[in-house]
């Protein structure tokens, strides 16, 4: 983790500039499209510039001034982060640019912040909150919920966390500017992934048999057989992890099953 390096290199935040509410709405809305031009060379870089653009218009000289153009050029270069936690960077960089922090300090900050925002966000969201919300929706399905409720549970639950995380990131980034690194040590980000992992594991235990039972719609004997074979197959999949992707194996085996069904 490079977060401590950011902390030492960063000054305490000065009383910051102010931005109209409308600009914040524009920045927040653009953050939903931060990965719009994601590519293998600059990754999220263009998206950062895109999100910051409404805020940078408040630089001296406006959108046609040299300060705006220099900031846009600086902020549209390579950057990597989790798309939701990139809000921390957007807030902090907006404050730094509008406070007139020297370019080299901003560039150092960008470099140092990218790693932690990527790894923390991946563990918290992609490997925690998303599977947890998904498994809860599957459990609801298994308990007999109708389509609208299943979809609603997933979307409301997941997006409550999603939007809260983006809003929190933008707020702490703007509040602390280049001194934002300690905020990444908040208990939510440090211990949250482990708690979520345990919650998701429990949800998986509930959801998998219930969901399987409802799709099968058959007897307990059939369900027991399916779960037993699935357990054995999962052990094999764990052993070959990294060499075989689960969805590709499922694709091949279901295709074979279909072929046999049609050809026999």
């Amino acid at each position: 983790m490079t977060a401590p390096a950011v902390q030492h290199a960063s000054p305490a935040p000065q009383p910051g500039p102010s931005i109209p509410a409308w600009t914040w709405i524009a920045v927040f809305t653009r953050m939903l499209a931060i990965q719009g031009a994601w590519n293998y060379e600059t990754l999220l870089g263009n998206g950062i510039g895109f999100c910051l653009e409404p805020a940078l218009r408040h630089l001296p000289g406006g959108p046609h001034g040299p300060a705006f153009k220099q900031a846009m050029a600086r902020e549209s270069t390579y950057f990597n982060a989790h798309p939701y936690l990139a809000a921390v960077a957007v807030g902090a960089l907006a404050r730094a640019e509008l406070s007139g922090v020297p370019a080299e300090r901003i560039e150092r900050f960008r470099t140092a912040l990218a790693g932690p925002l990527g790894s923390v966000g991946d563990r918290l969201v992609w490997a925690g909150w998303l599977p947890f919300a998904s498994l809860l929706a599957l459990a609801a399905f298994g308990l007999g919920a109708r389509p609208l409720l299943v979809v609603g549970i997933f979307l409301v639950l997941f997006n409550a966390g999603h939007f809260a995380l983006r809003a929190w990131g933008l707020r702490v980034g703007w509040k602390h500017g280049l001194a934002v690194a300690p905020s990444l040590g908040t208990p939510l980000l440090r211990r949250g992934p482990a708690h979520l992992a345990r919650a998701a594991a429990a949800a998986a235990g509930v959801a998998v048999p219930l969901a399987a039972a409802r799709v099968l719609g058959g007897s307990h004997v059939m369900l027991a057989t399916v779960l037993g074979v699935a357990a054995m197959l999962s052990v094999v999949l764990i052993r070959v992890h990294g060499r075989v992707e689960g969805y590709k194996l499922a694709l091949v085996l279901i295709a074979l099953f279909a072929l046999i069904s049609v050809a026999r």
Partner: protein
Amino acid sequence: MRELLPLSLLGGVIGLDVVCFPQMMFSRPVVAATVAGAFVGDAERGMLVGVVLELIAIATLPFGASRYPEWGSAAVVGGAIGATLHAEQGGTITIGVLAALATAWVGGLTLVKLRQWNAFLARRRRPALDAGARGAVIGLQLAGLTSDFVRAALLTAIGYGLLFPLAAHIQSAWTFSGPLSRSVVVTLAAAVAASAVWTIFHSARGSRWYFAGGLVVGLLLLLGR
């Protein structure tokens, strides 16, 4: 095939959600396949396909530059096929899932191409980007979003257009019973989900006990019904 155009547009919007905009995860299979099923008149069967796909998709972690299947448009194709085929014949869910898995695999390849396309566009606009031209930054972003929408809509159109007639043909020759067909696909999905749960969560202390506890609760709920 009157549903092809609206389904393609739906696939475009849902495919866009996977990476580009707004990442609210309505591209998850359990949502996308249910919505696609509702589009063609049977949300319930769309959801059955979506649930099986969701179990399989738990294994997919869309970390940074990693390559992964594109579940959004694929779930639209699979959910719509599963909901459109004759329910009384066997293999409906199985064929829908098969169509979705094939589309997801191809969709993952199209995402790689999209990212290469975005990089090409960024290289072409490099002088303007280096000069801090806001038009170049915004233009690149809009070009990326548009390209992704077109990619996903085309993928859905081609996937559904090719696979639906094939699926109908396969179903007409399907010989296994409905229960057997569903049990095979559920076994595979549950196995992939269980192995994914282990792989993703086993490093968290005590997670295996949480899983075991959840399993006991789940089985008790089943027995109590």
